[in-house]
């Protein structure tokens, strides 16, 4: 099964924090409110991860396939 991870489009991220609200399992916020995204999106978190991607008001979060290797 292919695996995914979250990638932030950093120049577009404006620290609104919705990703953290919706996906605290994988996203924490640094001291300035910008997301710190952890590791791989597990199968059970995939739905929530998709919701976080959709909710980002700046379209700055994407779910991408984990590169091989």
């Amino acid at each position, binding site marked *: 099964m292919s695996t995914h991870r979250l*990638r*932030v*489009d*950093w*120049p*577009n*991220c*404006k*620290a609104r924090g919705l990703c953290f609200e919706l996906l605290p399992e994988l996203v924490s916020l*640094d*001291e*300035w*409110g*910008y997301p*710190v995204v952890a590791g791989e999106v597990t199968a059970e978190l995939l739905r929530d991860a998709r919701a976080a991607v959709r909710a980002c008001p700046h379209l700055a979060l*994407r779910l*991408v396939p984990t590169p091989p290797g």
Partner: protein
Amino acid sequence: MSAVVVALGRRRLRIAEGPRLLAGIADGPSLEAHRRQWPAVRAVPLEQLATLAEGMQLRGRGGAGFPFATKLRTAAGRGAVVVVNVSEGEPASFKDAALALVRPHLILDGAELAASALGARTVHVVLPGEHAAVRESLLAAIAERDGGPAFRTHVADQRFVAGQARAVLELMAGRPNLPVTSWQPEAVAGHRGKPTLLSNAETYAQLAAAGALGSDGFAAIGLASEPGTTLLTLNGESEGPVVREAAFGTPWSMILAPEALNAPILVGGFHGAWLQAGALSRSEVSRAELLRLGANIGAGIVLPLAVGACPVDETARVVRYLAGESAGRCGPCLNGLPALADAMDALADGSGRERVAELTGLLPGRGACAHPDGTVRLVASLLRSFEPELDLHAAGRCGFAILRRSA
């Protein structure tokens, strides 16, 4: 050793005669002088060029060191674009400027070779905003050539991150010359979404040399594991920057003066790594050897610490400069680098090592470009190489300042 001296703004740049790319530079940069030394470009099919690049182990000379053959094969596709990056945004680097001033046609030969293999009719050349003499030299060289691809020039901003690959593509697209998020490698989808071979000026010059000399001829100098030569910018000497070409395997003791070898040395520029005094004394010019020592040759910048200067103070100063060079678009860089600069000032004053460690853990991998990563790499190398010095700072003293007073 003979050298060409060029005025570059208020600086005097010394370019030393070298074994290959910088051989015969006293004859001047004209096409006529160039052709007396280097034959006209012989087009070769893409796979043959990729095999040649693989044999010479050509890696990008802009700093990242990515294997050129991989890039070339990936960029093979409809509407491929060739970009020569001469922007050299790193202020301590002068090797691409030097090459453009004395050997512009070797850069353009390499670009022509790559363009013909990829079927690209136009070559984009990204010129530095900082040095008018470099721009003029390349423009004059382009005007001298006929046949071959059309050359289109762009002028990069005077900014540290302006030479970053995505920032260069933004400039070419008519947008601000700043990094943006890359979702795919440039070789897959670069300029206007087309496969794009974007490489540093020296990389193309090395490719041209290999095209002319052939695989065996190219490997006649250098190490078996690292054939050929590399350009270096040696800085920190009172007379200003010096660009030298060294065959891989040359002992550093033949390149650096004893006082430079016996000083802490910053290798790879402001995104590079500190090595302890004497680390290069019994070492040679080699990517592998530098990696073993914990440094990366990067774009070939070698900065010995001046007598009486302190690596902790110097790093704090460089981090403050790098913080100011943030494009200011990515939150972690915009906020994190000034915070790291503050933490470095505190560290130089003897406190706050925990804060530095916290920030160096927090910043990497969180930006459109690797500016925060490179800055953190510099700081991490300081923490690794100068532990005793940091203890002295924590105790309110500085070993280097003491040296300065006693000198």
